[in-house]
């Protein structure tokens, strides 16, 4: 038996009645009752997530921007205003995806990077290896001393200001995808739900105090179950399901994050340019009764595809999915999904499926 890793909020989750599961080696709350209720609370009001399993990495020193410009598929030069954030894939030389991450431009000496939990160790090893070769003056610091709480939903920011009034002045003017360093609290207007809100990075020993204070202010805890349906409705990729080290970003719906136009070179670029993708990521809505799930086969007029993420959408009250399909498949097509011994009809749609409290599929 392996010991599961725990975040600083582990006992708080248990005290709040969470059902805990093994989430990639972490003992995490999947729900605190009804996952569907939790989903609706975030779309319509707000809720808080413990995302302390994710890893904060600080890249510090001279030349950090030039290093990230080479390391990542998206272009760090898009970040001109301090605090602004950028979503990017980090690729291997063969163009496959090591991870997806968010970088925050704080100063020309400091970029903050947030990476996935399950990939953190390999990401940091890769970054250090690349830094040693291309930017030896840089330091890559794993911030194991930090916890992270996401407060998401239309009323989320106001709740943060109520509980952490000292952060208000610095964060009131934040644009979407922008962060402010407020001393102990690093507050970012980012998230993984398709709703407005903040992600707050803070010292581990402060996490429980913030969690309970938010709860007293009326913010309910939300489990990773609802986090998954919220991000799927919002059309956001999940590393390990929608992309991994066997596929590239262009066949994973991440073309919008890959800058192939500027003369800038980056790791993986040559392979991407030389190998235009034959597949793409598409949104599906199930027309028949059932539930779409990852790894189900998709039959199309242009060949076979596969669902990468599928679930029930509480906002649409229909089953939805992301699927990797041949390029010829177009929005509006009807495709067939193999579910057990049946072939069920699904419609190809433009995603996101829902954001900002509303379904986007008619």
């Amino acid at each position, binding site marked *: 038996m392996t010991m599961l890793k725990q975040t600083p909020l582990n006992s708080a989750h248990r005290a709040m009645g969470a*059902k805990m599961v093994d989430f990639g080696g972490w003992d995490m709350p*999947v*729900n605190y009752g*009804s*996952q*569907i209720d939790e989903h609706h609370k975030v779309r319509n009001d707000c809720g808080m997530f413990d995302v302390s399993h994710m890893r904060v990495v600080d890249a510090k020193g001279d030349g950090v921007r030039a290093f990230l410009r080479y390391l990542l598929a998206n272009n760090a030069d898009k970040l001109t205003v301090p605090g602004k954030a950028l979503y990017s894939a980090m690729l291997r030389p063969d163009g496959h995806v090591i991870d997806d991450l968010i970088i925050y431009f704080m100063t020309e000496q400091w970029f903050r990077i947030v990476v996935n939990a399950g990939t953190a160790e390999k990401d940091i090893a890769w970054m250090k290896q690349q830094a040693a070769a291309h930017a030896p003056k840089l330091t890559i610091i794993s911030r194991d001393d930090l916890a992270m709480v996401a407060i998401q939903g239309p009323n989320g920011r106001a709740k943060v200001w109520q509980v952490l009034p000292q952060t208000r002045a610095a964060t009131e003017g934040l644009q979407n995808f922008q962060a402010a360093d407020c001393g102990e609290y690093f507050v970012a207007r980012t998230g993984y739900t398709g709703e407005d809100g903040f992600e707050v990075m803070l010292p581990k020993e402060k996490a429980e105090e913030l969690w309970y204070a938010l709860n007293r202010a009326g913010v309910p805890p939300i489990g990773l*179950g609802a986090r998954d*349906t919220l991000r799927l409705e919002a059309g956001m990729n999940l590393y390990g399901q929608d992309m991994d080290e066997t596929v590239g970003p262009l066949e994973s719906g991440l073309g919008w994050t890959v800058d192939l136009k500027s003369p800038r070179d980056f790791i993986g670029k040559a392979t991407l340019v030389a190998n235009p993708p034959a597949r793409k990521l598409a949104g599906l809505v199930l027309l028949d*009764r*059932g*539930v779409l*799930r990852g790894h189900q086969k998709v039959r199309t007029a242009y060949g076979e595809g596969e669902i990468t993420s599928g*679930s*029930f959408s*509480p906002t649409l009250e229909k*089953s939805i999915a992301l699927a990797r399909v041949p390029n010829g498949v177009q929005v509006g097509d009807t495709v067939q999904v193999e579910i*057990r011994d049946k072939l069920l009809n699904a419609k190809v749609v433009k995603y996101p499926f829902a954001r900002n409290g509303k379904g986007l599929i008619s």
Partner: protein
Amino acid sequence: MSNPGNLKYTATHEWVKTEADGTISVGITQHAQELLGDMVFVEAPEAGRKLKAKEECSVVESVKAAADVYAPVSGTVTAANSELDSAPENINSDPYGAWIFKMKPDNAADVAALLDAAAYQAVVDSEAH
């Protein structure tokens, strides 16, 4: 919620209720619905289908996962609960009221041989360790 004493159970988390006419109603237990979470889809077997004991015959799906439901004994399906088509969440709110299908057992003694509430609870407790 404890497991009702008037029902029989399987080690695969189905409950079985013997009705006055000799048919049995089959559903999933409190423990099973709690493990699966919010139900969103139920696929019940069609009336007339002959089932063998332990055969996969129905699927219940929560937001999180799909789970097979097994025939508790051999027999013939007599009805499916169509209410669950539009209200699968009844399995969460009332697991011992929300039957999924009814069947006529080939042999009533097979039903008598299923687990009683205490024996089923022992199965649940052993899975927790």
